């Protein structure tokens, strides 16, 4: 059963449409990421689900209950903000217990629950400190504990990691994910960081200009992007302009490439032929391999673990692509600037989008 059902949600500010007819189901216990560039509407959608900035039209059901018109205080969610929004004048204990006090539980029960939560987020000794005495990562954990204190059915995370430095961010990614798995709480996280979404989410909702571009597992989003926007936004992608000759053939500047069968596009239409840099094949090419092209290395950028090479396709005007070469490969094949070599674009790794 789905925990949250969003149907035909729209949000307009005057003439500007911030959310355009969004429909979405989120299953019980699922970890969903809203991913997109800034201004795509992901935070607006999250705030509409929380009731903080209500939608203009459309409905939201939580566990079958219509919450579309309820104020935030009548909905069932915990929330963590990018700014943490910890109360600076209250100790960690008082922050975490803030929502428990108004539920009129006994002092001892509250104290026990707060300890439990602080242990859960790995800060058992932080209780008497004030937020200003904690590091950013610790503050974020306290905010998480506070949001979880009332055992909400839905956890909302609004860019929770973006104010932290890279190392802390990496560690917290795993901790939040592990915590979510243990508690089984349905979670929505807003992020603009694709890596964060790919590593943490069960499902990713990619958004652009107020609309959903694609919903899918991280693998689906990365391997089979549904639109050119998703292909471009998630990971790196080469876009080669061409024309669809047949359902499984694309012509790029006089060369014909095999590609997966395209049902939705009619032959003759302008398309973009796409391949990820890491999918360009160089080693051990069989003689009859499909989509073999001769290229020249025109740029070579050292990125640490690998090199990103810019390859100009021989005998074309300016068809070029990037490919990721491991350090081994560079050494073994003697890749350097100006070096000419043959590469192959495996057809099953190619994606075709209408241009």
């Amino acid at each position, binding site marked *: 059963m789905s925990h949250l059902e969003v149907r035909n949600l729209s949000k307009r500010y005057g003439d500007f449409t911030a959310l355009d007819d969004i429909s979405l189901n989120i299953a019980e216990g699922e970890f969903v990421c809203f991913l997109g560039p800034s201004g795509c509407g992901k935070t607006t959608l999250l705030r509409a689900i929380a009731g903080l900035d209500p939608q203009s039209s459309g409905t939201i059901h939580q566990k079958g209950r219509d919450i579309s018109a309820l104020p935030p*205080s009548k*909905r069932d969610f*915990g929330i963590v903000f990018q700014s943490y929004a910890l109360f600076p*004048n209250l100790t960690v204990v008082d922050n975490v217990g*803030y929502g428990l006090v*108004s539920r009129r539980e006994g002092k001892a029960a509250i104290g026990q629950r707060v300890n439990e939560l602080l242990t859960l987020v790995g800060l058992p000794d932080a209780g008497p400190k*004030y937020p200003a005495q904690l590091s950013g990562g610790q503050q974020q954990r306290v905010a998480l504990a*506070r949001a979880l204190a009332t055992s909400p059915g839905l956890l909302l995370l609004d860019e929770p990691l973006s104010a932290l430095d890279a190392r802390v961010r990496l560690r917290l990614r795993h901790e939040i994910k592990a915590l979510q798995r243990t508690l089984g709480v349905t979670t929505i996280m807003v992020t603009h960081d694709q890596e964060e979404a790919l590593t943490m989410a069960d499902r990713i909702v990619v958004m652009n200009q107020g609309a959903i571009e694609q919903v899918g597992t991280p693998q689906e989003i990365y391997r089979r992007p549904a639109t050119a926007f998703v292909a471009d936004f998630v990971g790196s992608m080469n876009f080669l302009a061409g024309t669809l000759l047949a359902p499984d053939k694309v012509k790029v500047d006089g060369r014909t490439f095999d590609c997966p069968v395209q049902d939705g596009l009619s032959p003759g239409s302008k398309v973009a032929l796409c391949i990820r840099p890491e999918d360009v094949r160089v080693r051990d090419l069989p003689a009859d391999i499909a989509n073999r092209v001769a290229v020249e290395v025109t740029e070579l950028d050292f990125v640490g673990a690998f090199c990103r090479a810019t390859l100009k396709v021989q005998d074309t005007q300016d068809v070029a692509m990037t490919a990721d070469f491991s350090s081994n490969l560079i050494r073994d094949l003697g890749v350097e600037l100006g070096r000419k070599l043959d590469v192959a674009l495996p057809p099953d790794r190619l994606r075709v989008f209408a241009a």
Partner: protein
Amino acid sequence: MSLAASSRPPILRIAVSRDDLMMRLGVVLFAVVLLVIVGLPLWSLLAKGFEDRDGKFVGLANYVSYFSTPALFDSALNSLHVSAVCTLIVVPLAFFYAYALTRTVLPVRWLFQGISLIPIFAPSLLPGLALVYLFGNQGFFKGLIGGSIYGFDGIVIAQIFYCFPHATLILVTALATADARLYEAADALGASKLRVFCTVTLPGAKYGLISAALVVFTMVMTDFGIAKVIGGNFNVLATDVYKQVIGQQNFSMGAVVGMVLLAPAALAFLVDRVVQRKQVALLTARAVPLIPKPKLGRDLFFTGFCTVVSVGILAILGMAAWGSLIKYWPYNLSLTLANYNFTNFDASGWDSYFNSVEMAIGAAVFGTVLMFVGAWLNEKTREFFFMRGVVQFLAFLPMAVPGLVLGLGYIFFFNAPNNPLNFLYATLAILVINTVAHFYTVGHLTATTALKQIDPEFESVSASLKVPVWRTFARVTAPICLPAILDIAIYLFVNAMTTVSSVIFLYAPDTKLASVAAVNIEEAGTTAAAAALCIVIVITSAAVKALHVLADRFLLGRLQAWRRR
């Protein structure tokens, strides 16, 4: 029903929670309070200008007679003239003083800063009295000046003293927020000192300069105490209102003069709002604060400059203090405390002082609560835009209204026999209410600024945790804003102690305030006792301010341990 219409779903109306409802009721209530203490009195004043002495509607007749009476109309020109001259003198003076405080290395910076604030704690008639001692008909240095100090020159000198701290405060704020990297960049590009000053320093302080100029202009325009003491035959609008109302009991003409006085003040206020809106934050989160480095020549020059200005301020204050201790100026210069035995000079004796203290405490307590809770309601209520707009307007209105004008409006509104609030008339309560209303805007702005600096998501978090808003207000918002709350209270106390203009129409014999008593005593010709009363006021408000500074440093430090890292 057309297809197009049905395809667009109806606009969703979100249910109003109990918190929302309570806060909206609060906003409405608050709007009503502001309407009663600000809006309606001003409306009564406006209406009064169109009535004759018997209360009959006479259209523009009063205005016609005002503008066709040269004696009255000349005052308006005099007011504009004296305000313009004071602005031209005070703003550059305050700018260089503020520049010295913020951009150079001064030996005793805190002392110079403290001295520049002294005039704030004095009623405006104090510099007037000091000038009488120095250059008056029996003044020490009367021979030094060609003519008489009474009139234009006296007003200008006293106003410089009186307005200086206000302009300095604004400009210190404007100059303190500088990004050191801009100066480093200018240096790296080889810009000359003058060019850096003209292209970096001045533009950075531009809005501060405009603001300071408007504040000084308005203060001079609307001040009553100085013109009263040292104006002589040089009539200005503020003294005209007083003469029409108190002297001739011509309330309608008083209302007309009040409206004329309101116009430039309101205009200055509007200009300031427009300018402030254009101002963008110069200091981004990444800016590097500018810390001045020692530079002998410049520092010596500015130390000298600040010393001259400070000596001037201290001389005026010291003259008033000394004068208050002298037996019989200028014939018997031996010291005495007799002038502090106010019973000999005014029927209310020391009572006026205790009235003042009581009134100031009342205004500080009642006003701070009203201003802070009101600002919070208006800031944190969701939606409800129209009513919040109304409140915002009413809260800003007092800034544009001179005290004399508001006081006059209070007479017309609260003294009307059919007003159910009539019982407040001639009580200490009406003085408290009037003072709170008169100084409303600054307190409201202070509270709003403090509230805006708090994470806006506190309320969202509270809602998600099902904690009622009032609990978050009491446990989080108010404690965090404690320094701002104290600032508002002190501001109200000091202004309540020193204000003359708005309360001069509203006191009864048993609720007379010290500042008003000083005016009366001076009117009766006893300069020494008037000076003595002014000094008592200065000591009281400065002592309260000093307590505040100490409390800020020691008590708040302990109460607000959470601020420490």
